[in-house]
């Protein structure tokens, strides 16, 4: 057995599984988007041309879901980055109880999104939930957390921030702790402190990790569905419906698999475009580590 074939032996199970369960389904879904599907009396596929795709382009509900998804991704990830970075900077020093804070701050990202959605739906409940009761206590009027479209979208984002700020926190904390101490000490000896130290020394060194974390988080956030499914179910109306949720409803509640597949591919094209763009924009910054 030579080394070349040995390597293939190691790789082939993984490649086989991914071909079977990721790449082939992807091709199948692509085919579905050009098909008409009937599940009555066994599955039958017929060529449907561009019908699904032209329907997609003219589907207001698709564009609405796309807009919702983009708003959640942009606002949510930006907030998570700023908060995660702030918390990492605050914790990255000798602190009494530092370990407790760290563990606590990481915790939400590990919890089942379904349970998180459910927790927050209780909290947002407008009559028997705690938030409006606390507002009333300080004399403020109740907020329509889930019954007003725009507020509901903000509520979804707040839940996402609770869930995923930990990711930014832990990645940036790890990066902060691996910064070369000599550089920081040299800068401090030169009299650089506080904001200047952060702006001109720490931040540039953090940038590659920060960009990686943002890209990873953005690509994940585009898939958001679990929490929305529980908290609002996409409502009121369709004002919090994400692309994945829309595709699921069309594919598995209306049982229009072909058009559901087309919506899912719309999401895929969006994610792909963002990934390629991110790689292009980010690459120049990735080299300037120190």
């Amino acid at each position, binding site marked *: *057995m030579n*080394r070349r074939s*040995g*390597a*293939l032996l*190691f*790789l082939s*199970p*993984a*490649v086989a*599984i*991914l071909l079977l*369960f*990721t*790449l082939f*389904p*992807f091709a199948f879904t692509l085919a*579905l988007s050009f098909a008409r599907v009937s599940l009555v009396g066994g*599955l039958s596929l017929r060529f449907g041309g561009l019908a699904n795709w032209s329907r997609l382009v003219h589907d207001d509900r698709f564009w609405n879901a796309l807009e919702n998804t983009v708003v959640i991704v942009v606002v949510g990830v930006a907030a998570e980055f700023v908060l995660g970075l*702030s918390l990492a900077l*605050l*914790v990255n020093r000798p602190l009494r109880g530092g370990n407790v804070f760290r*563990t606590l*701050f*990481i915790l*939400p990202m590990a*919890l*089942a*999104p*379904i*349970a*998180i959605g*459910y927790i927050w739906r*209780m*909290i947002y409940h407008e009559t*028997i939930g*705690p938030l409006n*009761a606390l507002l009333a206590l300080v004399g403020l009027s109740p907020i329509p957390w889930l019954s007003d479209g725009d507020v509901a979208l903000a509520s979804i984002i707040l839940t996402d921030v*609770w869930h995923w700020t930990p990711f930014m926190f*832990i990645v940036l904390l*790890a990066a902060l702790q*691996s910064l070369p101490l000599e550089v920081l000490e040299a800068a401090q000896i030169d009299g650089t402190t506080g904001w200047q130290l952060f702006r001109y020394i720490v931040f540039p060194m953090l940038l590659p*990790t920060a960009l990686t*974390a943002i890209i990873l988080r953005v*690509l994940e956030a585009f898939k958001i*569905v*679990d929490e929305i*499914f*529980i908290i609002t179910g996409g409502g009121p109306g369709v004002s919090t419906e994400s692309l*994945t949720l829309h*595709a*699921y409803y069309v*594919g*598995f509640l209306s049982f229009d*698999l072909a058009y*559901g*597949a087309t919506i*899912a591919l719309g999401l895929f094209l969006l994610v792909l475009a963002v*990934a390629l763009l991110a790689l292009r924009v980010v690459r120049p910054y990735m080299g300037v*580590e120190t």
Partner: protein
Amino acid sequence: MTGRRRWVAAGIYAALGLWSVFVVFPLYWMLIASFKDPLAVSQGPTFIPWVDFQPTLAAWKAILFGIERETIGKPLTNSILIGLGSTSLAVVVGALAAYGIARLPVRVGPMKNQDILFWIVSQRIMPPIITGIALFLMLRAFRLVDTRMGMTLVYTAFNLPLAAWLMHNFFQQVPADIEEAALVDGATRAQALWHVVVPVSVPGLIATFLFCLVFAWNEFLLALILTFDRARTMPILIAAQHSQRWIEWWSLSAMSLITIAPVVLITLALQRYLILNVLAGAGR
């Protein structure tokens, strides 16, 4: 300590305390909800046990020993079996691939080691709704919809990119010298792998296993599409309860806590490793 520094320290603790409250309050709310009786829920929010409501163990008794036991038994078993099965498979297959990429020259067409690793990892980016629609039809054709077998296979593929990536990071930190020495001494690649590589890889394998287990345990969308009854997992159970009897917060909270508890334990076990080893490599 000067006065100014003391104020700065107080400010830092205040900010950290504020965020702690934000993190803990929702979890606290769910915990106390599981000890509430119907009145304590439906008559408006109650905050502190023994102060504004009388805690009861009714929900927990019903789930652990009573009428809800039937409801939760099968999904819990499914979650455990599917989680452990798929995670074991993903870690073994992912570790093999990672080892091949980390230690041997690989070439598939124009792709070399790093390209293949990138290809494997990039599969994680694919939104699951895309594969989900096709997987539904594929599993249906093989009568694997709503079976543990089907879910185990799907979750293996779901976790494989993560497993391969984490194990690759790990193998890069383990020096190749010892295995090279074993190979020079006449061991076969398989012997070197089993007697030399596996023993030193145990920490990496365990951490990778726990990471993948958490993802399989928490996964929702694919389970929603691919199971209905026999193979449904805990997240699906909770989601279904919720649409049927939304106001029964006590019972839903207890079920959610059962789902969350193992993951909290895993996080506590992993958090040191998480900071030190895995994500420190994120910037590379």
